[in-house]
Structures are given as C-alpha cells and as structure tokens.
C-alpha cells in the first residue's frame, strides 16, 4: 500500500506581529512548525502502514527551507519525503496549489508505486481555508472524505475503506473505495514521537527535490500567481472601535451589583429576556 501525506510548513502560532506604523507583517524570527492538523494525518497514515504494510511518502510544496518539516516527518516515521519547490509556484492560491500538488502526487505514483490514499490535515492554521484537500482530490479524480476522525477499516483486496466523518449534526460512518483523499480532524489520534533510529536515518535520508518540470507539471500557466483565479487586492488591519469600554465604577455597592445595573441600563430589554432564559433552565 502506498500513502501520500501532504504537509505544510507554517509559522508558529500567534507570534506574527503587525508593524504598528507601516501595517506590514513582521515575520522575522517567527519559528516554523508542521501544520498541526497535518500531524494527525501523518499519524493515521503511519497506523495504516503499520497494520497493512507498504510505504508512506510525505509531500510538501514550499520554499527550500520546507525541507526541515519533511525531515521532521521522516523522524516521526515516514518512509520518503518529496519537496516540490520552484519559483513558478510563488503566490499560488488554493486552486493553483491543488494543481501543483496533484501533479506531484501523480508523479510520486508513477515513480514510487501507485497511490492508494492521500491524507491532508483538515485545514492549515495560517490559511484556514480547508480547500486544498478537496482541490487535490478533484484534480486526481479520487473519492473525497473530509473531516475524518478515524479510519475504521480498510480492505486492500476489495479496495474499500470505512471512515468516521464529522458532519454538522453528528458523525457519518461511510464506506468508500480506494483511491481516496482523506482530510483529518484534530486531536483524534495521539501523534507518535520520532524514534532515535528514525532521527538518525532522517538526518541522512535524501529528500527528493522536484521542480515544476521534474514533477511533470504540464501547464506552468496554471501555477503560481498566473494560475490563481483569486487576487488579493488589499491587506489591512481591523479598525479599532471608536470608543473604549466604559469602566464600571462600584460606587458604594458591590461590584457585581454595579455591573448588573450597568448591563440593564444599557440593554433594558435584556432583563426580561434573561428572566425567560433563566426560567427555561
């Protein structure tokens, strides 16, 4: 069995600051990590490999420095790493990204063995769109299983897979076919730590580096800015609210009482509504 896990190197959490004067983003010195949701995807892929045999290939598209994330994934236990890197990819939106990644996955299939399952995280913590997974899936014409909390069974003979998938009001238990693309939910499995042996191997391992041409990208016009139908026109900081909060002064009475008075003074209707609500409990 051959599984491909798409990962993304993202800036670590809230450490991005906005320059107070120029309104530009200050990214210097912000450490990078593997997008946390992608780690759950990697873990689920490794579990399937441990159970059914085969290989896990991790794939990322990004600048040359994204190699760090791939080595981390090798340390955790992936068998092979592919870095798709080319200046033609710069400025890709989700449609252009899915085009490039799908091309690379096809090439991975023809080079290292047919791909049965592609995993991604449910979304990235920097872009937050949840669009790249479905995008890759449609490009490859695979079956799409998003927001999966668990792969419950897999039958390589029959080429079927069963998953639990979150929907708005509950959990769908689905049976589908291979090849498929799965996007994984957060916190559904405990992500393993890398082993010493893996770390040593990862340090020595070769990371496969592909340009657009190496990956067999057919139409460079569909990559990067040129291939992106969406265009960012303006970036700006949210406008601050005109007035600061009114500070509640507890003149002689307990602060809790003073606060309630202020609330009901500002929103007289709330008092009645609250009564109705509270009665309902």
């Amino acid at each position, binding site marked *: 069995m051959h599984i491909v896990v798409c990962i993304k190197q993202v800036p670590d959490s809230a450490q991005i600051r906005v320059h107070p004067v120029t309104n530009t*983003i200050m990214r210097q010195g912000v450490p990078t990590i593997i997008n946390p949701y992608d780690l759950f995807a990697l873990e689920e892929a490794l579990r399937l490999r441990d159970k059914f045999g085969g290989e896990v290939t991790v794939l990322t598209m990004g600048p040359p420095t994204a190699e760090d994330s791939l080595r981390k994934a090798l340390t955790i236990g992936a068998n092979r790493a592919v870095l798709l890197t080319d200046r033609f990819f710069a400025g890709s939106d989700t449609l252009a990204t899915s085009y490039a990644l799908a091309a690379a996955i096809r090439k991975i299939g023809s080079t290292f063995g047919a791909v049965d399952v592609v995993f991604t995280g449910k979304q990235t913590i920097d872009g937050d769109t949840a*669009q790249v997974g*479905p995008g890759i899936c449609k490009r490859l014409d695979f079956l799409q299983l998003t927001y999966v909390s668990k792969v419950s069974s897999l039958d390589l003979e029959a080429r079927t897979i069963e998953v639990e998938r979150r929907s*708005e009001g509950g959990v*769908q238990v689905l049976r589908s076919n291979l090849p498929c693309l799965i996007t994984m939910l957060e916190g559904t499995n405990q992500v393993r730590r890398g082993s010493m042996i893996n770390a040593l191997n990862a340090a020595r391992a070769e990371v496969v580096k592909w340009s657009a041409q190496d990956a067999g990208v057919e139409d460079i016009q569909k990559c990067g800015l040129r291939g992106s139908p969406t265009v960012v026109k*303006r970036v*700006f900081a949210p406008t601050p609210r005109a007035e600061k909060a009114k500070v509640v002064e507890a003149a002689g009475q307990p602060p*809790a009482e003073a606060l309630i008075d202020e609330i009901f003074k500002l929103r007289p209707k709330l008092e009645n509504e609250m009564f109705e609500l509270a009665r309902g409990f």
Partner: protein
Amino acid sequence: MSQPAKPAPQPAGRAAAKKELPEHFKAYKHVWVFIEQERGHVHPVSWELMGSGRRLADKLGVELAAVVIGPTGEATRAAVAESFCYGADLAYVVADDVLTDYRNESYTKALTDLVNTHKPEILLLGATTLGRDLAGAVATTLLTGLTADCTELEVDADNSLAATRPTFGGSLLCTIYTLNFRPQMATVRPRVMSMPERVEKPVGRVIEFPLGLVEADIVTKILAFVPDRDKATSNLAYADIVVAGGLGLASPENFQLVRQLAGVLGAEYGCSRPLVQKGWVSADRQIGQTGKTIRPKLYIAAGISGAIQHRVGVDGSDLIVAINTDKNAPIFDFAHLALVTDAIRLLPALTEAFRKRLSAHTRDRIAS
C-alpha cells in the same frame, strides 16, 4: 530588532489590474445562495447568507436565487418555501432521494451541473463542514476562485465581488477578488452575517433540475449516522447569552465559576483557545477565529485578554462585558463594559447577584 519600513502592503503581482472578463463568462448573472439542509433541517447560516445575497443582488440589479439540493418530500419543499421568506426571487431545486444524506459525489454533481447550466455570477455557501467540503470540490471542478471564511461581502464600483477575510492568523484582513473567472465563490461562517428579517412570502419561481445520477452511480455509501448526543454543545453559535473564561482563570477548577454563572443565566459557556489546548474545556466550546463565531445579546468574558483571534469570533455580539485585572488588556478596546478586577473573586458574586435579581423578578411577576 527594528523592522525596515516597507511601503503600504500592495502584494506584488496579485493586485493586477482588472482585465476585461472573457467573453464566455459574460453570460454569468445573478447571485446564488446554497441552502444547506441536513436531515430535514436548514442550517441557519443559509438564511444569514440570504441577507448578504439580497444586498449584493440589489446592488448588481440582478436576481437572488436559493439553491436547494435534497431528497424529495416535505423537508425540501419547506426549505424552498422558506427561502422565499428570506428574500429569494427564485429557487433552483434538485430533489432526488439519492440526495437524502450529504455525500460529496452527488452534491458536487448537482451543484456543478446547475452552475454550468444556469450560470450565476456569485455563489455563496456556509463555511460549515458540509459547505466547505462541497465548495472546495465544486470550485476546483469549475476551475474558479473560492474565498474561504469571509467576514464581509461587497460589490465594488466595477461590479466585482470584494470578499474580505481574516489572514495571518486573524491579525489582518484582506480583500480578495476573483477577477477573470466565474462564478465568484465565497464561504461565510455561521453567525458572521446577521440574520435577515423573515417576511411572509408564499410564492416564488421554482426551477427544477434533474440530478442525473442513480444510487448505483455513487461509490460512497452511508453505513450509519450517529447524531450528537449533547445537543447543547452545538448551540454556542446561536446562544443569546454566552459566558466565557480564559487563561486568567488560572485553573480548570476555576473554570467551574464560568459554568455556574452560565447555568444561572440559562446561557452557553465558552472559552479562549489556550483552555482547549490545555484540555480544560472541549474544542467545540472554543470561541474565535479557529473556534466558533458567536453573536449573542450579551457576552461576558472573564480573564480573557482579547487577542485578535478571539476578537473576530465575538465582534458581532451586541453587548460585550469584560472582566480583567489588567486595565490595558486589549479586550477593553472592543468591550462595551469593563470591570477591572479579579474574575475568580467576582464570578461567584456575580452568579449570586444574578440569581437574586432573577428570582426577585419572578416574585414581582407573580405578584403583579
């Protein structure tokens, strides 16, 4: 370390001038809203989107259409009728029992075929699990642009859709255009747009559309559906009163104080992200950019600093009350009422005071 001052952010190349729309896209007109149904219920985000859709359609001087995809029968008919009450001029309906439960294959086919036949200029969907699953697939199949999780939708002077969304973890906003492709697609999270007024309107045009699939054509099968047991958990986004706690509460035990106040008020409770990361509170209670967006009449935030990622989830609240020991906490920049004090001490007193008030209220009402 000082940051070299850069000119105002004009991302290179991206802000390319608008070109003439390719000829074959000029037939694309009208604004569509996907009406999300699950197991007989329309997700309220669909009506919220109808409010925005109506505004956009009026500005463009075009029609607003609801897209209703689902099984044959009463629930789908009701969704269509309801869409007229929320402002639809017409409804495109794909009704087939194969569409009883959401599956990507069947819904993607229905929506892509509809778009290719009837050509909308703008297509809006809720950024729910269903909406995101569908929107990503449909946009890629149509090879058009899709902007996720928008917080504002406008039509600019050139009649293009200007979709604004948070970027860089919520620290900034950006406005995105889909220039030379149609339809222009966007998703919006529940509760980001306000609910439009419902107006009794019994009729509108209905255009039925065939699915063109039978069950045997669909690979993915639904083996079971397990509805969420805890109904209350999914209610946070739609609660009228929300009480939330942050890291300032210092321990999971103190978080009980938030639950107790919420209990007395008949409110929902929520939290900031670190509490979820620490495992004090479950993930579906997180409020903010990567959690839920709320729009309550009253929001009480105790021990929450008010980081931008939290703020974007609560900005639509009618009255924001912040309790924080630090008078310079960023939350006071967007709260309406501020109490600069220790929340761990205040919360029990507040719970007690509310309890008294509300029971006094009961007495008054019984007496009168």
